[in-house]
């Protein structure tokens, strides 16, 4: 027993005057009577307890009053017993893994449904509950709702098809609980492999801020076989099928278009191995790839492939150089129809998708040609301006050129500043080249620079509705040898692809969890409904349609397809169920003591009444 108010013990000092009062009270009268024998009999009739009490305590009133004072003092001391009690109301963040692997059906209806069921059972009516869906980014679907609201909302949640990122969800939960007491995070997941911070690490970080994190695992088995990758190759499309089963599995890959089976192939996949199927001569349009195999995760047994309709891109190269190298680079791309124009005779720009301005003299161009090029870009045309010694002489390029030429040139090594689909894997790094001194214009993106002054040699920007690229390396030996390297034609193919933009395969096929900027708020038909947004989060597999275009979204994630539970959290930290947390509370007992004191006072009154003094 402990005391909340120890100073109250001084109240015991009231014993002293009370005892003194009893000491100074008159001595008992002494009388002689003949009938003491009868009083002895009376005394014998009293119970043993009173008899003993009488022996030690001459006057019971003193004892009663001393005990009463002691009890009142004890009550003032605020005595309490430390005890464990269930927390009545907690601030709870439920982190529910909504990733693709949670759609596995090895437990109940699905792992997700199992998790939701468990979560509904944990929430108490007085709790303040926040719910985070752990997709590849954490999504808060409820903030500080009451228990009933949380349970109702949980019943409406559906699993997504994104990769998982439990760590960030836990850290977000920790931030939501900042400044609160009795806080905890309960994570429901299969703890299959995911992305972001490790859940165990995030748990430690949360624990450092006083947030208890409980891991509740759902899911029993792995053994999945699924489509984990689709790549475009020179020959067509490669589809990777990965088996996580213990034994060899026979699978059939079936390609369909509008319910019409185009091809089908059956193979055996060895345990923990990957089998690649090649799909060739695909027609344009939306295709469906089905993996015929019975496993707990149907989600990755189907993939969608949006194949752009074949279309020839028309490219105009304006150059006075005889037999320019760029011509050969363009020729390597089968889908390009190119034409070289020698000034001053230049066909109308509107007849082409891409215009490449090579080395030309200002005097060769008819007046207004550069202005027409700028107008062409503003209206949606794509322009590539290639550096040359005579570039600065061309007037009127400033409005469309993504760099500002400083005049003069330098020589130095190239350095890739931004790695993207244009520069990835290209052998640009370290190439020594001559370059024009320039500065990037505001709003442009510098992909590569050269020299110690960092002049941009590859910069792009959007101009009006079109795109403009600046390529600062003249394909000539006096500048560099880059035009002689194998990367040169690849670079030009990528550059023209990038210029063509939306018609690319890569622009029509996405992985779930990707965020697609739409530029403006548009109505999007998702695989399961309609949304209006300007940034489309692809959290379902299937086809999304907007603005007359279609894109495909697939899981295509080896980690999500590996549904074997429990690999990201130490087993000892995983629980089967969650119990309401107990906290140490003070069980105050002064009420009981006061009742006892009141009973004693009442007893004293009864005693006095029984003795006939009241």
């Amino acid at each position, binding site marked *: 027993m402990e005391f909340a108010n120890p100073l109250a013990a001084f109240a015991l000092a009231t014993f002293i005057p009370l005892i003194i009062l009893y000491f100074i009270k*008159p001595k*008992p*009268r*002494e*009388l*002689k*009577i*003949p*009938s*003491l*024998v*009868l*009083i*002895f*009999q*009376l*005394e014998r009739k009293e119970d043993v307890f009173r008899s003993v009490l009488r022996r030690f305590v*001459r*006057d019971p009133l003193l004892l009663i009053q001393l005990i009463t004072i002691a009890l009142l003092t004890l009550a003032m001391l605020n005595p309490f017993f430390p005890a464990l009690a269930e927390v009545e109301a907690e601030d709870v963040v439920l982190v529910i893994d909504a990733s693709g692997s949670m759609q596995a059906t090895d437990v109940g209806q699905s792992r997700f449904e199992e998790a939701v069921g468990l979560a509904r059972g944990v929430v108490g009516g007085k709790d303040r509950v926040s719910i985070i869906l752990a997709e590849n980014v954490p999504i808060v679907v409820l903030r500080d709702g009451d228990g009933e609201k949380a349970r109702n909302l949980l019943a409406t949640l559906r699993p997504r098809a994104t990769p998982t990122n439990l760590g960030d969800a836990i850290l977000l939960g920790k931030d939501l609980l900042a400044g609160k007491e009795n806080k905890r995070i309960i994570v429901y997941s299969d703890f299959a492999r995911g992305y972001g911070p490790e859940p165990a690490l995030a748990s430690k970080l949360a624990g450092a801020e006083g947030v208890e994190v409980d891991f509740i695992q759902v899911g029993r088995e792995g053994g999945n076989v699924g489509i984990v990758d689709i790549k475009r190759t020179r020959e067509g499309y490669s589809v990777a099928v990965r088996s996580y089963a213990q034994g060899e599995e026979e699978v059939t890959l079936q390609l369909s278009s509008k319910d019409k089976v185009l091809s089908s192939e059956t193979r055996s996949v060895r345990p923990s191995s990957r089998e690649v199927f090649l799909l060739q001569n695909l027609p344009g349009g939306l295709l469906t790839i089905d993996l015929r195999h019975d496993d707990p995760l149907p989600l990755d047994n189907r993939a969608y492939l949006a194949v752009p309709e074949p279309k020839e891109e028309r490219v105009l190269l304006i150059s006075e150089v005889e037999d320019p190298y760029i011509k050969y680079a363009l020729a390597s791309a089968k889908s390009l129809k190119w034409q070289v124009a020698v000034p001053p005779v230049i066909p109308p720009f509107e007849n082409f998708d891409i215009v490449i301005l090579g080395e030309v003299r200002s005097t060769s161009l008819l007046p207004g040609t550069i202005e027409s090029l700028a107008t062409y870009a503003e209206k949606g045309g794509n322009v590539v301006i290639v550096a040359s010694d005579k570039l600065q002489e061309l007037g009127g390029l400033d409005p469309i050129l993504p760099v500002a030429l400083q005049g003069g040139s330098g020589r130095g090594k190239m350095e890739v500043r931004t790695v993207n689909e244009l520069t990835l894997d290209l052998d640009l790094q370290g190439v020594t080249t001559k370059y024009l001194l320039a500065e990037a214009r505001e709003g442009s993106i510098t992909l590569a620079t050269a020299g110690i002054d960092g002049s941009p040699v590859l910069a792009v920007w959007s101009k009006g509705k079109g795109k403009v690229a600046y390529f600062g390396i003249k394909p000539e030996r006096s500048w560099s040898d880059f035009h002689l390297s194998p990367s040169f034609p690849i670079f030009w193919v990528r550059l023209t692809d990038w210029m063509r933009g939306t018609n690319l395969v890569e622009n029509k096929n996405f992985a779930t969890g990707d965020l697609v900027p739409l530029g403006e708020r548009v109505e999007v038909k998702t695989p399961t409904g309609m949304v209006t947004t300007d940034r489309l989060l692809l959290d379902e597999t299937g086809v999304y349609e907007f603005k007359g275009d279609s894109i495909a979204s697939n899981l295509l994630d080896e980690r999500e397809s590996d549904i074997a539970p429990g690999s990201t959290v130490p087993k000892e930290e995983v629980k089967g169920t969650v119990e309401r947390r107990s906290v140490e509370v003070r069980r105050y007992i002064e009420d009981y003591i006061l009742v006892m004191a009141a009973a004693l006072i009442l007893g004293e009154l009864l005693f006095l009444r*029984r*003795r*006939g*003094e009241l």
Partner: protein
Amino acid sequence: MLNTDFFKELDRFCFMVKKRVTTVYAGERRSIRQGKGSEIVDYREYMPGDDFKSVDWKLYGRTEKLYIRRFEEEKNLTTHILIDASKSMDFGAVRKFDYASMIGAGFAYLVTNENERFALSLFADQLVEVMEPRRGKRHFLAAIDLLNKAPAAGTTRLDLCSEQYSKMIKSRSLVVLISDFMQPLPSIEEGLYKISRGSHDLIVVQVLDLKEKDLGWAEGDTKLYDLETGEMVHVYISPRFRELYRERFEAHSNGIRKACEEVGADFFSITSNTPIFDAFLAIVG
């Protein structure tokens, strides 16, 4: 203390009693007891073991059967007056012992006037004074003298004293036992049983003081000492305590009354504030 006024009162008292009591101590009472005497009551057939001298030979001559005569026993009555002289009797505005003495002297005076024999004895934890049963004024005066000089001292042992005294009673007698009976009830019951053996007539008079009967004069924190033993008990005398005490006292008296009924004795409980003649009239009336 008895004095001459008391004797005058006794004369007046005796006159009143005579008028109202005609048969009790007249010396003419028939006894229901049969034995050796002068008057034949009846006859019965001789049985082996009967005294051969009792055979009525004249009747044998007439009937040729052996009959024995049955006589009425002597009808003279001896009165034994036993007065408690223990220390507990030394209590009260009118000492209980004095009051008991007056009752005892009253009986003696009444008996003397009828020329019957009486014996007056005092007892406490044992027999203190024992007088031989005799007749006459001189004997009466000796008894008065004894009562005047007797100190009230010692504890009460009625059981022991009854046993001792009952052995001294030779013939059928009237026994008057006067005491406050302040001792445990079993001891009293035993004493009454012993003194009543021998088919004696027994009159039991309990003399009490009003103060000891209700403890109304005592209150609060009190040390009570026993008059006889000096034992002390420390009590808080409250109305409740007094109520319990009264109940206990009543039960004690009822216990004595019940014991008296069992032995065929008459029981009278009198407080010392009762006028003596009223008390005496209640006893012998």
